[in-house]
């Protein structure tokens, strides 16, 4: 168990491409941190630098109190779970899980006991003598977890471990991984591009974009107070509505429409207005007209896609609300309005 701190960590590839800009953050002992972002945002590079599989161009990486920049991955006291599991295909589950211990010269009797323990924890006891090819995706995932757990490392690293599973299994494994991490109290860094995974599993989320940290915060902070339009549109499904608007004497005015709401900030001029689809109500007396083009039935909810003042807009309503195509009127909850700088995309 350990705290992990990154101080000015950068990654520049030999061809000059900067994959990760100077990055500072500290992961607290026992914390579950999720790195999330679109493909190519540098999240995997960051994880691989923590693992030691990628050289750190600049900066200081500490695991516990030890600077590990030049420490071999094997000696960093970490365990990693890979996207494709990276199980050794010719070894049984038992040998797969025990391989790391064997290489460290652990006595055979101790390996056997630890492997049994890990297998019991992960419901793998019946499969210990099988080869990975004879296991299902979820079981392979568990073996990969077992390989990490058995060594009792200071830090777990997960590199998109669930993306090869089907949706149902993914939900289940998500809960299992989270529960396991809680129980063991091991610090964990988890990389994903799936914002649902990030929201559900993280103690804290780090949103990355183009090699830069956009925002660090708890899932609730990230969801309710996105620091930029990027975070606003990346986190949450459906994403936050972002439309062009104007602030004029403390009032928000949506372009091409004269609906007026009090502005939460004192800024003036053009802004980007953000509001979550569920913070909007259908309301016959509402002040804003909303043209519904497509109605998506999700069971518990309905999604109404359409246009507001000529800009694409989405509204989420509960299943017991009636909805119709065409012209509707809506009310935007004033406390849910978020305003962003039109140029930089940062929150105002």
């Amino acid at each position, binding site marked *: 168990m350990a705290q992990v701190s990154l101080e000015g960590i950068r990654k520049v590839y030999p061809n000059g491409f900067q994959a990760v800009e100077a990055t500072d953050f500290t992961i607290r002992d026992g914390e579950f941190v999720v790195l999330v972002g679109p493909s190519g945002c540098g999240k995997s590079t960051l994880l691989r630098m923590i693992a030691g599989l990628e050289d750190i161009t600049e900066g200081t990486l500490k695991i516990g109190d030890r600077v590990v920049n030049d420490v071999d991955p094997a000696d960093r006291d970490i365990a990693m779970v890979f996207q*494709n599991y*990276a199980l*050794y295909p010719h070894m049984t589950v038992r040998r797969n899980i025990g391989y790391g211990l064997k290489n460290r010269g652990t006595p055979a009797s101790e390996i056997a006991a630890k492997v049994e323990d890990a297998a019991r924890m992960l419901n793998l006891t019946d499969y210990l003598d099988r080869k990975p090819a004879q296991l299902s995706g979820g079981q392979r995932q568990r073996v990969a977890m077992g390989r990490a757990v058995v060594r009792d490392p200071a830090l777990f690293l997960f590199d998109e471990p669930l993306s090869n599973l089907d949706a149902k299994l993914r939900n289940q494994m998500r809960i299992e991984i989270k529960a396991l991490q809680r129980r063991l109290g091991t610090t964990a860094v988890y990389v994903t591009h799936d914002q649902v995974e990030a929201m559900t599993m993280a103690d804290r989320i780090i949103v990355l974009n183009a090699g830069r940290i956009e925002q660090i915060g708890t899932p609730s902070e990230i969801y309710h107070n996105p620091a930029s339009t990027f975070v606003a549109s990346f986190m949450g499904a459906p994403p936050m509505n972002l439309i062009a608007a104007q602030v004029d004497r403390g009032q928000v005015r949506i372009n091409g429409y004269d609906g007026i709401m009090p502005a939460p900030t004192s800024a003036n001029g053009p802004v980007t207005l953000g509001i979550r689809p569920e913070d909007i109500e259908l309301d016959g007396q509402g002040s804003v007209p909303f043209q519904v083009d497509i109605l998506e039935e999700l069971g518990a909810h309905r999604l109404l896609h359409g246009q507001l003042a000529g800009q694409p807009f989405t509204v989420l309503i509960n299943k017991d609300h009636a909805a119709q195509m065409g012209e509707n009127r809506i009310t935007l909850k004033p406390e849910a309005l978020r305003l962003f700088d039109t140029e930089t995309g940062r929150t105002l």
Partner: protein
Amino acid sequence: MADTTLETPAVAHRPRKIRWHAIGDHLVLILGSLLMILPPLLALTTASHDAVTIHREGLQLTLGDDLGKNFHAAMFEKGGFTQTVDGTLMLMNSLILGIGFAVGKIVISMMAAYAIVYFRLRFATLAFWVIFTTLLLPLEVRILPSYEAIQKLGLTNTYTGLIVPLIASATGTFFFRQFFMSVPEELAEAARIDGAGPWKFFIDILVPLSRTMIAAIFIIMFVFGWNQYLWPTLITTDESFFTLVRGIKQIVLSYTDGQIPEHGQALALAIVAMIPPVAIVIFFQNWFVKGLTESDK
């Protein structure tokens, strides 16, 4: 084969149609098999006659009385110029050459491929292509310098001299390189985190993963080594290093003292020479096909 047997139940209900294309296929296959099997068969029947009959009447289609005698003579009668070498010794030599060849080539080319694929060598790609271009320089092209080098090292008439100069293999290196490149990179990374150094990763992970590849290359290289003729002829003058392939020729060419060459014995020896490669192919067949077609990852 497989799909015709599978189709049968479905077809059985309908009035039988003559499937001309199937008949055609089988005809081609049968003719091909006959073509392949007739020469050894002819060798076997001819080997059962005595030298005089063969010399006078040529190849024989019927079984004669001398099969056992010819085989016995071919295997156990000392022959050659010095009268010291018999068939068993030659069989032994051929086996040493074939196995030494195959094992040596596999070890060398696996290690070369491992270095090229897994280590950040400065000129790895260049090194690979240099190795690869040696395909353009087979033994026959460089035979004189090769001979001179071996002769100066004093390795003529040794197994080392027979085997070592030929074990560098561009083909093997190429096959293993392609295979290693198809092994997921995460496997090496997982092993690194699991504390396996380069040597352990090679022995514990790569070698077991490559076993079908190893089997396939073993077959090819064993047969190649077994059939070597030119190099052994050049490098060994001592008859105790004779291989079967050379022995056959030796018998046929012994026109000394106006004797009729022992054609029966030569053919018996030829049949003996065919058995090990065939046995190895049959034995490793499954792995061979696997190694060349599927990737076991």
